[in-house]
């Protein structure tokens, strides 16, 4: 059944090609075609995840290939929502390589005879893990808009109006996307930590045990708390917020990768 992922990856890759061309040549038409392809890829992807869930009788985020597949789905979801809200032609060119890659890797390491680890047999899995992935995907978007901001700001400040000046969105749009994705990500991350604590109480008898992943997520959460706080008070906008969003995402990646201690199951 994992062959369906090829269709998904193919549609994403086609969307990527159109996005790149539209980005390079600044043709809005291609960007729109790309969105259509990604949207259809996303529908296939959603259907695949549903089927998989029904077949395996659990939410498909219990091993690495399932997780990557689900993570790709989350990023595409945030990408589509952002694209519907803002006309940022540059977004696809930078998001879709990751999405396509994740989908392909997930398919390559697919394990048809996967059995769910006993540790993960819990109702908490649904909320805790899926919301965690949504947080990671949102933070990816936050980071990306931060990078866009920094590049565009440099073009505007150094007064060198070059390739990216013409292709990246305005500072206001970058800042807006950064803010929105940050808030979504932050709320999701908070839910992840709280539900994780409850699950830990059930599974290991303690709310918090300073396991490496727990510690890492707390640090990530604190970084974003700082950013949200300053962002709300408006005194940190633009460049500083962009830097923090990049640091925050580095921390997010670390959190995503730390799977030892109590969180060993991959």
């Amino acid at each position, binding site marked *: 059944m994992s062959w369906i992922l090829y269709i998904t990856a193919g549609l994403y890759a086609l969307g990527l090609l159109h996005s790149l061309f539209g980005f390079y*040549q*600044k*043709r809005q038409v291609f960007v729109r075609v790309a969105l259509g392809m990604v949207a259809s890829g996303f529908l296939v992807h959603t259907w695949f995840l549903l089927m998989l869930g029904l077949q395996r009788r659990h939410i498909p985020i219990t091993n690495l290939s399932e997780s990557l597949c689900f993570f790709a789905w989350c990023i595409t979801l945030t990408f589509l929502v952002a694209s519907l809200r803002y006309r940022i032609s540059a977004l696809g060119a930078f998001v879709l390589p990751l999405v396509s890659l994740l989908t392909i890797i997930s398919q390559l390491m697919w394990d048809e005879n996967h059995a769910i680890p006993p540790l993960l047999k819990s109702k908490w899995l649904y909320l805790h893990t899926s919301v965690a992935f949504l947080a990671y995907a949102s933070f990816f978007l936050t980071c990306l808009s931060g990078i866009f901001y920094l590049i*565009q700001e440099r073009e*505007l*400040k150094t*007064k060198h*109006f*070059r390739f990216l*000046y*013409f292709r990246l969105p*305005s*500072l*206001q*749009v970058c800042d*807006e996307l950064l803010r929105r994705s940050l808030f979504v990500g932050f709320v999701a991350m908070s839910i992840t930590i709280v539900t994780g604590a409850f699950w830990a109480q059930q599974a290991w008898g303690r709310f918090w045990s300073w396991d490496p992943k727990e510690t890492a997520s707390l640090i990530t959460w604190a970084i974003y708390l700082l950013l949200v706080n300053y962002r709300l008070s*408006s*005194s*940190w*906008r*633009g*460049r*500083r917020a962009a830097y923090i969003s990049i640091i925050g995402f580095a921390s997010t990646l670390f959190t995503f990768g730390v799977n030892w201690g109590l969180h060993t199951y991959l």
Partner: protein
Amino acid sequence: MAKFVLVGLSHRTAEVEVRERVAFQATRVPDMLRQLAALPAIRESMIISTCNRVELISYAENVQEAIDSLESFLSESSQIARQELRQKLYHHSGEQVVRHLFRVASSLDSMILGEPQILGQVKSFYNLAVDAQSVGSYLNSLLQAAFRAAKRVRSETGIGEYSVSVSSAAVELARKILGDLRNKRILIVGAGKMGEVAVRHLSASGATTIRVTNRSFEAAQELASKFRGTAVPFEELTQAIMRSDIVITSTGSKEVLVNRAMAHSIMSGRKNAPIIFIDISVPRNVDPGVAGIDNVFCYDIDDLGAVVEANLQERHREAALAEKIVEQEVDSFCARVKSLDIGPVISQLQGRIEEICRLELDRYVRRVGPLDPRGARELESMVSRIAGKIAHPLVTQLRSVNQDPVHHEAYLSVIKRIFKLHKETEEKENEA
């Protein structure tokens, strides 16, 4: 064989003193078209006359004759001696005319590359020619094809997308920083002319709140009334900047009005919301050092020039793509014109009938054996006459229908199909 002919001059070949003397006023054009139509060498004609170019486009039997009479026509109408005028003129014929006109209509030959007015100008001069009935099927199809090419260039390239004037460059920069300019607040410092132009552009893109401040409060009030804005006393400059998103300075003041320390306090007063200084006064009124502060953007007149320069380069890049589109359209138009050309069809038609008759003659000779020389000659000339008489009405009909744009194509294709001339034409093209 009849061809398109073009004689004209443009900003590339003639300075404005010459162009303005050669140019036709729109009201004079119908009369001029009638005079052109009376020229014996010209079959169809139209005039394009803008401030950057004057061109006569014709369809004529003999290219050299047509160029001669068009040149003397221009020389007479402009009262410039022909020898003198000739140095400024260019002339094209056949496919060159098609390419030139397509490039003109697509604004690839304009002084400001990609400027949008030229297409409308060509259209209105074409309409004048249609009204004066000086254009026929050839110029009609040429102009329609030119409009199609121009439309493709507009929609498939970004040649007209980037602003190339200083004040629209200011708007573009403001958009790159603040995004949508609706509900943005503008402050004009100084009641200069340049500031006024920039504000006009900004308010056209939706900026609503406009405040004016000036050392002379009356002048500020006067300018403010033009934009339904409000005048602010000059003493409240700092407060006014704090409450604005775009500040345009164009005063004659020799001193710096906004320095770094002031910008710092302004930024903390406005919670770091981004602000743009557009300083078009010389000497500058805003210390360029303020750009070192986060969320403060400062551009002087040279920076705006740099934006224009960068945009022009983008337009040139787009122009390369536009040239490709024009080339495609030229090819497809020329191929169509070629397929409508009756010359080769007539000779093929005659050849085909002759061939059939000759085949039958040979068969006759094979059956009855060798003939005496006189009989053979007679028979041969009889066969030729028959072939000629069959072909004659068809050829006459083809020639007469050639004048008729509606039935021309259909008639040609029927003849081609009946006598199976299609394949031959294609084969010959392939060989070539």
